[in-house]
């Protein structure tokens, strides 16, 4: 009930959305008794978090979880809420508003927070059932209900909103096509390179893209059936979501005679051309700019509340906002802010790591950071954003700035340390403008232990949620181990919503013993999967059921099917095994003969101490192998997610520094482990003394001889991201080296995800876990060792030998027919 109390001024708020209610919240903080407040909303709901609609669509949140202010809040603060009753007219002379219901209410102050409307192109077919926007709860309900009855969705618009819609619909099991007018996605927030990475990632998730696509017509008779593009392409679909943009909702302001351009014009004090009428949010045009993101709207709300709460002499100005964007599509780390396109007055610092899908670009003008785009690793977004805000000269910081705060500050690149190093005033939550100090204070004051608690009390990560990981780091910082992080899972591929670990667990739990059985039992989206899941499933099955599972050649990558390494011209490279890097005159002669006989163009010594024969044609492979087999050589598995080489130095047999026979140890390790399949390639090395000439400390498993025995190391990598091994333990005998190595390899085979090398696997599970299973727990080690050796009984056969079970059917190498 809104009881008119004499002496109180009347404030009417038009619009029950985020901007209007945030302004009211800020006003109540400043001057709770000044106004009788009435709120009119067009939607039949209380105030909710529009940004989280994409989480509702994606099934991550229920509708009641996105309510910002429940009915009790309105009641408690004496606010009269009229939902489902839009204001249709403002009479500025009489100072009244008229609602659709006919109700006429007087005001002293009026706050316009009418938000925006989805843009719609003028094309035929928009009236059809199955066409909707992505703006309010009703739209989301339309989309969810369509996803339950229909299969194919089309999203028009590849901006932030469109991609969120696409991701959500895809998560609800629909096949989604995105039509985007421009060449690259999110062109207002991303430069083309980051946009392409994003497109590739979403494409991997099964979303199809039609860029440079202008939608000409929505097709259908009784219901939407698809869209036609200007170039004639037709895309079938049962749901069409228009997400091409928003437009400030200014109709009411215009008919009231207020000054409007693209939006309702306001000054720095958030007043419209009528001093009694304020406006905030997406309906506003301030200094010729309109805003569609939440951070500037929160700033507007504060300024507007200052003026509503204070007198005519209040000094509080909104001066515009530099925008930072984080994309909140699950699993994609993306950040952009400021002027990231640059011009002739700017310089760029760019970092690319294509294998890890990381791209960073900083734009610098006159030694100051003015723009940033981060893809794949956005942890430093807040720091860069802060640097942009302070606008201090970079100076020496410039040398290392691209590597992020941890490196530029000379500290370790540990995300916890990174957040710990942030100053208290560093902004963590861009949406709600919450700094680190406020979050830490909130945790302490309210004894918060959960993310939800922090969200409720500080609003940090409560809007778009993309700073969640940083807020969690702060919880860890404040509570230490007392904070338990909830887990999210990345799907194995676009055919399933299950992650690698879940699929593996189900294979064992349900005793699934073939790829079709896995796909059927776990509800795969495509009948025969895709090139991502099939090789992974093949590997998981052969590790789970050695000797039982029948290897599926058609689910192996070409190299493992052809037992040779495909090259850029479609020819292959052949690498015979050289045990521990040892070879002989006989072997070298046989290799030389093969090179001559088959006219092999290139012969190269590999980094793994073997010889690579490059440029062998597919049809030649069986004959090449036959000749190499005849000289006693077998496949080196240089092509496989398998045990590759065991690199050695000459050791005590020859070297004057050698302490142990590293070559013999290497040969023994290779004889034990060759033929084993792994999540990724595996390289071993044995050095005969701590000089470590075999580079054992950048191998997956490295052995270094010392006077009293052998040091064992694990998890090294010499690739794109060099990682030095972790020390595992020291053992005394060769038999122990073999046992520990087999146990380590088996643990890796059983626990790492397909295509995850030992280095990232250990980074993920921690070396302590490996030490526990392989070193501390002897029973566990022996069991792992047994399982490895048991599996090896089935896999130590030379795929090159004609009678080997894994020998390829020769038809694969021959031409089916020749036609003129």
């Amino acid at each position, binding site marked *: 009930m809104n009881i008119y109390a004499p002496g109180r001024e009347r404030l009417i708020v038009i619009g029950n959305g985020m901007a209007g209610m945030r302004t009211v919240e800020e006003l109540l903080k400043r001057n709770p008794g000044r106004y009788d407040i009435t709120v009119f909303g067009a939607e039949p709901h209380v105030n909710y978090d529009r940004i989280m609609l994409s989480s509702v669509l994606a099934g991550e949140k229920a509708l009641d979880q996105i309510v910002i202010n429940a009915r009790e809040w309105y009641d408690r603060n004496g606010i009269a809420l009229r939902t489902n009753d839009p204001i249709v007219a403002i009479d500025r002379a009489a100072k009244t508003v008229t609602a659709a219901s006919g109700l006429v209410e007087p005001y002293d102050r009026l706050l316009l927070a009418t938000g925006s409307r989805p843009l719609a192109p003028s094309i035929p077919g928009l009236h059809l059932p199955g066409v909707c926007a992505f703006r309010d709860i009703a739209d989301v309900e339309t989309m969810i209900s369509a996803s339950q009855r229909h299969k194919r969705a089309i999203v028009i618009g590849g901006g932030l909103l469109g991609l969120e819609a696409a991701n959500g619909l895809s998560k609800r099991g629909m096949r989604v096509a995105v039509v985007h007018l421009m060449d690259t996605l999110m062109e207002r927030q991303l430069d083309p390179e980051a946009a392409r990475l994003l497109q590739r990632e979403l494409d991997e998730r099964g979303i199809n893209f039609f860029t440079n696509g202008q939608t000409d017509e929505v097709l259908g008779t009784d219901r939407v059936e698809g869209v036609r593009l200007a170039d004639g392409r037709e895309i079938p679909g049962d749901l069409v979501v228009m997400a091409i943009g928003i437009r400030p909702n200014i109709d009411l302001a215009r008919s009231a005679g207020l000054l409007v351009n693209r939006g309702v014009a306001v000054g720095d004090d958030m007043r419209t051309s009528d001093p009694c009428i304020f406006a905030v949010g997406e309906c506003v045009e301030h200094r010729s700019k309109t805003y569609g993101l939440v951070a500037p709207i929160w700033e507007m709300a504060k300024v507007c509340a200052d003026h509503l709460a204070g007198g005519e002499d209040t000094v509080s100005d909104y001066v515009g906002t530099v925008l930072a964007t984080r994309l909140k599509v699950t699993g994609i780390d993306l950040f952009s802010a400021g002027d990231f396109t640059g011009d002739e007055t700017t310089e760029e610092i760019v970092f690319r790591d294509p294998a890890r899908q990381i791209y960073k670009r900083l734009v610098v003008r006159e030694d100051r950071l003015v723009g940033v785009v981060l893809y794949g690793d956005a942890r430093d977004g807040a720091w860069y954003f802060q640097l942009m805000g302070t606008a201090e000269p970079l100076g020496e910081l410039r040398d290392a700035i691209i590597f992020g705060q941890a490196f530029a500050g000379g500290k370790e690149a540990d995300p916890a340390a990174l957040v710990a190093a942030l100053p208290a005033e560093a902004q963590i939550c861009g949406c709600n403008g919450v700094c680190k100090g406020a979050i830490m204070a909130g945790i302490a004051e309210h004894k918060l232990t959960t993310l939800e608690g922090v969200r409720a009390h500080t609003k940090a990560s409560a809007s778009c949620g993309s700073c969640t990981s940083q807020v969690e780091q702060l919880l860890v910082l404040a509570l230490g181990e007392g904070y338990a992080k909830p887990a999210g899972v990345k799907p194995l591929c676009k055919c399933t919503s299950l992650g690698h670990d879940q699929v593996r667990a189900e294979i064992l739990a349900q005793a699934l013993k073939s790829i079709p059985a896995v796909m059927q039992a776990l509800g795969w989206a495509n009948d025969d999967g895709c090139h991502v899941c099939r090789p992974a499933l093949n590997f998981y099955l052969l590790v789970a059921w050695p000797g039982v599972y029948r290897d599926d050649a058609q689910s192996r990558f070409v190299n493992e099917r052809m037992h040779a390494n495909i090259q850029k011209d479609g020819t292959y490279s052949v690498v015979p095994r050289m045990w521990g890097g040892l070879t002989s005159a006989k072997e070298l002669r046989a290799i030389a003969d093969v090179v001559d006989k088959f006219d092999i163009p290139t012969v190269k010594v590999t980094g793994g101490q073997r010889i690579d024969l490059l440029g062998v044609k597919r049809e030649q492979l069986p004959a090449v192998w036959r000749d190499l087999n005849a000289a006693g050589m077998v496949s080196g598995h240089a092509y496989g997610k398998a045990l590759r080489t065991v690199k050695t130095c000459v050791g005590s047999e020859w070297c004057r520094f050698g302490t142990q026979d590293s070559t013999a140890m290497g040969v023994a390790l290779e004889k034990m482990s060759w033929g084993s399949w792994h999540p990724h390639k595996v390289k071993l090395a044995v050095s005969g003394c701590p000089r470590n000439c075999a580079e054992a400390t950048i191998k997956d498993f490295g052995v270094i001889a010392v006077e009293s025995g052998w040091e064992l190391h694990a998890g090294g990598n010499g690739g794109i991201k060099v990682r030095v091994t972790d020390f595992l333990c020291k053992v005394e005998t060769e038999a122990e080296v073999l046992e520990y190595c087999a146990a380590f390899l088996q643990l890796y085979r059983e626990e790492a995800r397909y295509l995850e090398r030992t280095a990232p696997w250990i980074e993920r599970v921690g070396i302590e876990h490996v030490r526990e299973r392989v070193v501390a727990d002897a029973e566990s080690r022996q069991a792992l060792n047994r399982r490895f050796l048991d599996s090896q009984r089935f896999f130590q056969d030379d795929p090159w030998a004609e009678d080997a079970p894994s020998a390829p059917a020769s*038809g694969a190498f021959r031409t*089916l027919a020749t*036609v003129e």
Partner: protein
Amino acid sequence: MDTLDLVWIDVGALDAVPRQGARVVKTAKGDLAIFRTLDDAVFAIDDRCPHKGGPLSQGIVHGHAVTCPLHNWVIDLDSGEAAAPDRGCVRRVPARLEDGRILILAS
């Protein structure tokens, strides 16, 4: 085109191509990849990925599509088109099954 010029040529038995696999037929216009999908449909397309010329016959076959072994472009066997965001098209040759034999249309 005069239909009289069109001749169906027998290139081999269906059994000679594994399900979810491919074999190569040599022609005057270059290698042709003959695919057999899980549902026993057959397709013939140029054995050259529009991206960098990779041998499509060596890729993993899934649904009516093949993933190029060089850089994971996915080519739709029905249309010959590369899946978005990649763009390109492979020449298709009509292929059909008759009495367990694979026939392709020579022009």
